[in-house]
């Protein structure tokens, strides 16, 4: 599919110093209360975190749909000739959008390679902590990207919605292929496999609504019907100073 996207597409490299993964936050990512992880886990986090920047290549970008090309129904989005069957949870929350941004973000392959190497040598715990750092860091890259989009939107007096990703809130991960069709080839060095798995694995993609009437919600898991989702949280994680 050929699209004229160059003028509405933005790519960024993110400085590691702008990402704030710290021990209290990571303890919560691992399931514990802040300060509640076993001593060995706390010490391993402290040992691993200073090395993380060496493995990071954070980048992300988005493309904004041309004006007047978005139609939203009860359970789907019709975007510039492409139908996304998102389900009603997402379409309902985007319904006041004037247009959409389609985004990807990644931390690069370094952390997953480090994690796999640790696990291959039998060091499962360190490997798991590195993997969890990757999962949280890529969400923070996406957070950073949202802020960039918000800045651009504010220039027009617009706001943005939360981000929504294929694979969550009832939206099939298979539609990732449609989403990627809006982006340049190998955008931000992210590839998509036939089974819609992004490589590097520590990558996220999704859509964000833009417009004068949209709003952000502070905590999203409550809207979703995937009760057993592995990313489900009982309450929002806060980025704590640690």
């Amino acid at each position, binding site marked *: 599919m050929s699209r004229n996207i160059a003028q509405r597409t933005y790519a960024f490299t993110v400085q590691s110093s702008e990402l704030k993964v710290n021990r209290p936050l990571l303890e919560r990512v691992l399931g514990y209360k802040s300060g509640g992880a076993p001593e060995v886990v706390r010490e391993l986090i402290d040992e691993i975190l200073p090395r993380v920047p060496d493995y990071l290549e954070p980048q992300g970008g988005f493309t904004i749909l041309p004006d007047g090309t978005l139609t939203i129904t009860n359970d789907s989005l019709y975007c510039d000739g492409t139908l996304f069957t998102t389900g009603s949870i997402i379409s309902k929350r985007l319904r006041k959008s004037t247009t959409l941004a389609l985004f990807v973000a990644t931390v690069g392959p370094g952390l997953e390679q480090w994690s796999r190497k640790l696990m291959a040598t039998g060091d499962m715990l360190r490997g798991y902590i590195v993997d969890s750092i990757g999962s949280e860091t890529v969400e923070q890259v996406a957070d950073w990207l949202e802020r960039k989009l918000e800045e651009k939107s504010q220039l027009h007096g617009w706001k943005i919605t939360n981000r929504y990703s294929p*694979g969550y809130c009832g939206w099939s991960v298979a539609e990732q292929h449609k989403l990627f069709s809006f982006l340049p080839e190998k955008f931000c060095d992210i590839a998509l496999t036939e089974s819609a798995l992004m490589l590097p694995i520590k990558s996220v993609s999704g859509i964000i609504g833009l417009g004068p009437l949209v709003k952000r919600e502070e905590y999203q898991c409550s809207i979703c019907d995937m009760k057993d989702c592995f990313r489900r949280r009982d309450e929002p994680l806060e980025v704590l100073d640690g």
Partner: protein
Amino acid sequence: MREILEPLTRCVERGKVNSGSPYPSDLRGQDGADELTRKALESGVSPQDIMSKALIVGMRHVGERFRSKEIFVPDVLMAAKAMAAAMEHLKPYYKSDALKHRGTIIMGTVLGDLHDIGKKLVGMVVEGAGWEMVDLGTDVPPERFLKALEDHPGSVIGLSALLTTTMVHMEATTYRIKSLNPNTKVIVGGAPVTEEFADKIGADGYSPDPQGAVEFLNIHCVHN
């Protein structure tokens, strides 16, 4: 025997590998799973009793506490490490038939899917329950499951997937396995998998957590 086996159970539960392990700090300097298993064998406790009355009990507690969210993945990994230290002493007894696995499970993440950690976690808990685990890794096509089944006849097959797009390969894999080996039990799991999906694709079992997989295996797949 109890005075040897109960501390061993605690070492597994708390991830105390050996006397040199600095963690948990309240057990610092004390014997871990490594030394206690060796001492149990030296004092004449049978490998089977060490396995069934200490190690499996410890890992079962770990699996149950993980299921009820009292503990988390790192705790399970630490417990598995302590279990592995104990198993180093017991491995020779499998060769001499003094100790037998409850059965064998061949596990793999299905074609197109590279997620590994969840499967590994289930594998550790299943091994801790006395099962032999053959790990085929990730992105495993049906043919490799069939080949592994030829190499390990009578095994159970465990399929993992983390994406709705790769879940479909669970159906194809289950179909291929069942077509050629109708009596082979297949159990499935992974974030997007549900009991309803497992039923639909003809799998015999589903569990949202590792301990559920153990319970399925122990109830439905033990022949002796």
